[in-house]
């Protein structure tokens, strides 16, 4: 019995598919989104229409899209993976040529009814194409150099284009998610170890060369790296935001300062309080309990995703789910580490909570794929 025949025969069809959805995952997503609405309502100073209401509408739309994606069989999505990847590349090219600039970066495409951010789209299509590639590639060839170079190219092309926008955060996310996909797919350890060693050596060389006659970068580039790595050396510029962010987070204490009582966010000491720094508002107003709760919810989402991936005997499905889970993990981990001053500020939103349309929709599509893989898994 062919694999396809097998799946067609045993998967649920029609309305019955709804019963086979991963419901705990949906409940968790809604819970996180609701926390997001609450925080958006709070940072708008108790105003629903500023941010919370548009966000609710987007989430509702996102849920619809997710269900739609979930209803479509996973093999369809596998078959359009390459197409999706090519389309997102084309959009990235388009954004470089005719994109709209904002905040010093060229990231958006105006497509009439909404502004599209192709760098968001590529997060999901990259995961899809890599999953499809390794699904197609016989296991015996996975670690052969030729077959390793191909996925590396698949990853690096969009990464380079996103980096040009410039959007460091998304580039890192894509790179990390792609790397993890390759790792999970079974590429030999030695590749990863050697890449990590090479990168370390390069970074070491760059820093070591500073002030010598074989200096690898210009002085101003070093200064940029300095402030990037340690914003506190520039307390009124880059350091101001991270300092205020840490003050807000730390002043939350055990139980926080109370809903809508966070002074740092309410009095505008916090930058980007409705997008990248919304976690800080949460931590300020609901304290350690609030912050650890949302971390717990994210962890549960990961647990459900990973267990769904491991329980799925379809290689494409499990790779895809792991890729989505990894992307999701990177989103919130990088965001939290960033606002806590553990890593430089790179501009990554908190998934499902930060205000923003493209990121939310892409995430919901990604979870739609997870649901589709879950519904249509081989039984």
């Amino acid at each position, binding site marked *: 019995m*062919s694999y396809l025949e097998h799946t067609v025969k045993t998967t649920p069809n029609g309305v019955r598919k709804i019963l086979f959805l991963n419901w705990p995952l949906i409940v968790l997503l809604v819970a996180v989104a609701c926390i997001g609405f609450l925080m958006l309502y709070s940072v708008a100073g108790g105003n629903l229409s500023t941010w919370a209401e548009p966000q609710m509408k987007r989430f509702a739309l996102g849920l619809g899209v997710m269900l739609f994606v979930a209803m479509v069989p996973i093999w369809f999505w596998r078959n359009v993976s390459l197409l999706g990847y090519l389309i997102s590349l084309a959009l990235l090219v388009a954004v470089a040529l005719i994109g709209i600039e904002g905040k010093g970066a060229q990231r958006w495409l105006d497509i009439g009814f909404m502004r599209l951010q192709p760098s968001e789209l590529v997060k999901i299509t990259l995961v899809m194409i890599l999953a499809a590639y390794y699904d197609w590639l016989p296991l015996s060839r996975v670690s052969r150099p030729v077959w390793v170079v191909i996925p590396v190219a698949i990853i690096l092309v969009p990464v380079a284009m996103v980096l040009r926008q410039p959007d460091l955060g998304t580039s890192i996310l894509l790179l990390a998610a792609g790397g993890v996909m390759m790792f*999970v797919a079974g590429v030999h350890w030695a590749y990863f170890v050697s890449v990590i060693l090479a990168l370390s050596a390069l970074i070491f060389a760059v820093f070591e060369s500073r002030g010598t006659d074989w200096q690898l970068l210009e002085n101003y580039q070093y200064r940029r790296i300095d402030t990037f790595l340690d914003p506190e050396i520039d307390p009124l510029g880059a350091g101001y935001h991270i300092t205020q962010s840490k003050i*807000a987070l*730390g*002043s939350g204490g055990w139980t926080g300062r109370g809903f809508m009582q966070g*002074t740092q966010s309410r009095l505008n000491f916090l930058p980007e309080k409705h997008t990248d720094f919304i976690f800080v508002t949460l931590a300020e107003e609901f304290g350690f309990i609030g912050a650890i709760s949302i971390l717990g919810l994210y962890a549960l989402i990961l647990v459900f995703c990973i267990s769904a991936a491991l329980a799925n005997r379809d290689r494409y499905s499990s790779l895809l789910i*792991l890729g989505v889970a990894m992307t999701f993990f990177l989103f919130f981990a990088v965001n939290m580490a960033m606002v806590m001053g*553990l890593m430089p500020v790179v501009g990554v939103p908190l998934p499902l909570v930060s205000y923003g349309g493209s990121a939310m929709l892409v995430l919901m599509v990604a979870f739609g794929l997870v649901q589709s893989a879950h519904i249509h898994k081989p039984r």
Partner: protein
Amino acid sequence: MRRPPRDNAASQRRVTRRGLVIGGLQVGIMGALALRMRHMQLDQADQFRLLADENRINIQLIPPTRGRIFDREGRVVAENVPSYRITMVREQAGDVDDIISRLARLVELDAGELEKARRELQELRGDTPVTVADRVTWDAISRVAANAPALPGVHPEVGLSRRYPLHEDYAHVVGYVGPVSDRDLERIDAPEQLLRLPRFQIGKIGLEARRENLLRGSAGTRRVEVNAAGRVMRELNRQEGEPGADLQITLDNELQSYVNARLAGESAAVVVLDCDSGDVLACASSPSYDPNLFVRGISVADYRALLDNPYRPLPNKAVQGIYPPGSTFKMVTALAALEAGAVTLDETVYCPGHMEISGRRFHCWKRAGHGNMNLHLSLRESCDVYYYDLAMRTGIENISAMAKRLGLGVQFDLPMTSVAQGLAPTRDWKLANRGEPWVIGDSANTAIGQGFVLASPLQLAVMTARLATSRSVTPRLIKSVNGVEQPTGHGEDLGLNENLLREIRRAMFAVSNSNRGTAYRSRIVEDAFRMAGKTGTSQVRNISSGERATGVVRNEALPREQRDHALFVDFAPFDAPKYAVAVVVEHGGGGSTAAAPIARDVTLQALYGEDPPLAAYPSVDRPRIKTQQEQLRKARPRPGRGESDRA
């Protein structure tokens, strides 16, 4: 696509293994995040909370209301009145120029002020209120308020501003307040933060400056929450300050106003003391100026005019002006000689019109001489030779000591600016300050109030009060602080021989009431209010030897600044002294003609508490006095009309 099941199973195992590795990595990272959160939110929470509060909480000062000043009857001397100004906030205004042109149609805007405001509006942060017009009228403010919808960002504001309703009358006593200057801040060590508030005013001169500590009060504070842009969001709490103490001074508004009006046109000073308490009832220096000009910030032209006026309006001549007392000093010499036993009441000295002292000829003012003079006659007719003789007998140390007992050469601690010490010279003083030994001629000059001896009108009034009461009356300026009565200057008995004092007083009575007295023309004819006085004429210049030979040039022929100062001291009523008065008219000529009439008018005004009846004056003076009274009534501010005057 077909796939060998074995391959599939191997793939499944590898995915599972590596998936778990990744999962483990994720758990590790999340653990690290949770630990970091725990560290920041639990271990360092207090520290961050403090930083957050430092961010948001600003402490602002609330300036206290300055204490008011009232006269002895509780009538306002210095008060705080609402002052209106118009401010503008750029952020709210939008098009600044448009709003200003609209505002200009409603309110008269000063070009200079507007220029400054425009500059500030451009330079300062958008939410800073900038004063566009200061001290605008209530009408203008109401017009602005009524048109508020058309004037976004324009705010009428009200503050308190010092006002001196009696204008010139109290300029020298009370002084004025003004904005804190850099020089003020340098002068005060560790200045209060309050002084750095914009628009805060402190006493610059006079009572306002000397009792700044009482009048200022203490600042309150309010803690406000500000946002990242520094804008005040709300008030968290407020601690009220202490308003400044209200002071009641011993002066009487009506008398003070009268004295000021009476001195108009002269460069003169008058002090009126209450003989019983030492209360300064009037203290005037003419010409005066309007202290309100200084509160507002005086214009350069106005200030120049005050500085250039030859009559010197700025210094307070009544307490900081020092003059040779002239013949008003003769009571001191006489009393010193009598107390020392150097002369008896009946002893006579022959006055030929001059006296030779160590080869120099000392003249009496009366060239022809007075003939035989005893103490009574010498005071009444102000014979100089008699006092030259007394000086020889008594010695300068006795005279100087008596002068100090009577208040000359003593610095009284009155809360006014630059209260002068004057000078009662001694041998030691001359040696120390002039480097020359005392000569007998110096004693002769001192005896008639010339030479080194110097006294302020205040000191002369104190001397007169002490002569009149035999007590060491001390002047007092502050009657009460916040309703708490201050100690009076009643004074202990001076310990002088009362019989001798009585003779001195009788002689002073004769000065004013005997037809041979030097001030007979300026007498009071109302029996209950007879006054006793003494004229004085003090030389400003040295008389040259040429003049001595040819005769002294008449005063009227001299340029003003070389003419003699005219002085007069008196107390009244003679039987039960209530008031002591000292008058100095700078370069006024003779004490009997220039100073005595003023002293009489002021004394009568004090005695009656209002314009005295013409019957108190000798009949020849009455027509002149009548017109003078009418003129002065018009000239001085009448209380209770128009301006609210009572506290």
